[in-house]
């Protein structure tokens, strides 16, 4: 197993992204991304809308293949996995989608319990109990029989989160976890992400452009700009950096090296 990389000395790295490039026709979204995700940490990837943050998550899960470079999860290259290996890999992951992506033909119980029902041989009462447990962890009860259409945006996010952690994953990927929520609900989600990391010791990657959320949940923040990671540091290092691009982004200014339009 190859878990060594220059920027993970002293810590066990779980995911290594080396020189990853990805283009869609003429649009070079990722132009050589290098990043190491350490075990048990929450890494936040910051960047403007459309800069390729979500693409990076999809590459890690093997939903897309990189044009160049490699993504190692526990030392195995995702891009060269066959369908069976990918299926095994994905069972170690949970993902919270930007718009929750709940299956709207299923009830909340069926959504959260889908992985358990399909991949384990647990008896039905046990599955129901686990579903109720996970829903309780995200602060929901008595919603099992509702369809997603009957839930508010914040509740959908929380059900999505319960579904992401239902199989007790090693990794959880969050795609814009607070986008589209009111500030109070956004903070509820932030608190949930922190408590999941602390109670379940999950390794997390969150992509967002919400600075408040990033400061709160991150152990390390990486900034993606023009298809590359241009800065990695703790929230405090980000706050105090004099890197012009990072400063402009965290201050939310239209003046600076990042073109506003």
């Amino acid at each position, binding site marked *: 197993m190859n878990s060594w990389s220059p920027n993970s000395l002293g810590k066990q790295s779980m995911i290594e992204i080396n020189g990853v490039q990805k283009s869609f026709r003429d649009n070079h979204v990722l132009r050589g991304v290098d990043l190491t995700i350490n075990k048990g940490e929450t890494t936040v990837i910051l960047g403007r809308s459309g800069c390729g943050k979500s693409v990076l998550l*999809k590459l890690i*899960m093997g*939903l897309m293949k990189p044009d160049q470079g490699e993504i190692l999860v526990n030392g195995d290259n995702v891009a060269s996995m066959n*369908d069976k290996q*990918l*299926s*095994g890999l*994905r*069972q170690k*992951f*949970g*993902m919270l*989608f*930007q*718009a929750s*992506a*709940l*299956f*709207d*033909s299923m009830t909340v119980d069926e959504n959260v319990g*889908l*992985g358990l029902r*399909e*991949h384990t041989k647990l008896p039905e009462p046990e599955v129901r109990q686990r579903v109720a447990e996970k829903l309780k962890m995200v602060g929901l009860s008595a919603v099992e029989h509702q369809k997603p259409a009957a839930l508010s945006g914040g509740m959908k996010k929380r059900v999505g989160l319960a*579904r992401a952690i239902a*199989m007790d994953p090693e990794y959880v990927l969050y795609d814009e976890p607070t986008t589209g929520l009111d500030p109070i609900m956004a903070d509820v989600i932030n608190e949930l992400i922190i408590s999941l990391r602390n109670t379940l010791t999950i390794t997390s990657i969150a992509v967002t452009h919400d600075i408040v959320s990033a400061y709160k949940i991150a152990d390390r923040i990486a900034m993606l700009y023009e298809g590359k990671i241009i800065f990695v540091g703790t929230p405090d290092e980000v706050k105090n950096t004099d890197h012009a691009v990072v400063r402009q982004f965290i201050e939310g200014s239209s003046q600076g090296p990042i073109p506003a339009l």
Partner: protein
Amino acid sequence: MAKARFSYTPENIFTCVGRKTLTFLEDVGGLALLVKDIFLSLPKAFSRFHLTAEQMLVMGVNSLPLVALVSVFTGAVTAVQAVYQIQDFIPMRYLGTAVGKAILIELAPVLTALVVAGRVGAGIAAELGTMKVTEQIDALKTMALDPVEYLVAPRFVAGLVMLPVLTIFSDAIALAGGVGISATALNVPPHVFLNSLKTFFKTMDLMSGLSKAFVFGSIISIIGCYQGFRTKGGAEGVGRSATKAVVMASVLILIADYVVASILFG
């Protein structure tokens, strides 16, 4: 703002033809790959029978009222027009044969398939298309579930089984329509109609219609799923996929009708 007009320069025409050709080849390749994946995942459709049963309900049982309505009028109009076409040279006691063969071999399977393509094919494309644009398909994959196994295989099996079943209902209802209109408006009593139907009936008449239905059923679900998976963009993309699914399925149904007929009767 003035809209840029398409100018018929040779370059533009070649670009347009080239793009259409590429899209066509992409569709052929994409469909071939989807069919391969469907066959590989068929065993799973039986292990998750509840999903297949759900689709059978949607495709079969819920389509029955519409199919019945279309069938009864098909039978009636076939009888009325058969009288107009044959009355000068064939005795009316053979009306049952003419109407029956037309219904069993051609009209019931084709019209049922076209109605179901409009109703169910568009529904499949819209449902899977919405799942695609709202990332539900990606969510399935992240949960280590194969969308072809989970979504396509049950719909494929449901189409394969339910289209022949619907066609049998359509045969019966259309014949009833034919008998009814012959007795009430065309002066051919039911026993005369049914006798002539029986006298010249061949098992092949029924089986050829059902073989067609079998093929049409798979076309409807495969095309619906294919267009659903290819959906891009938001609501507009979903609408476009639903339309494309109906058009593509209808055209392929008529082409397949000719091919199956040529094989069986040629």
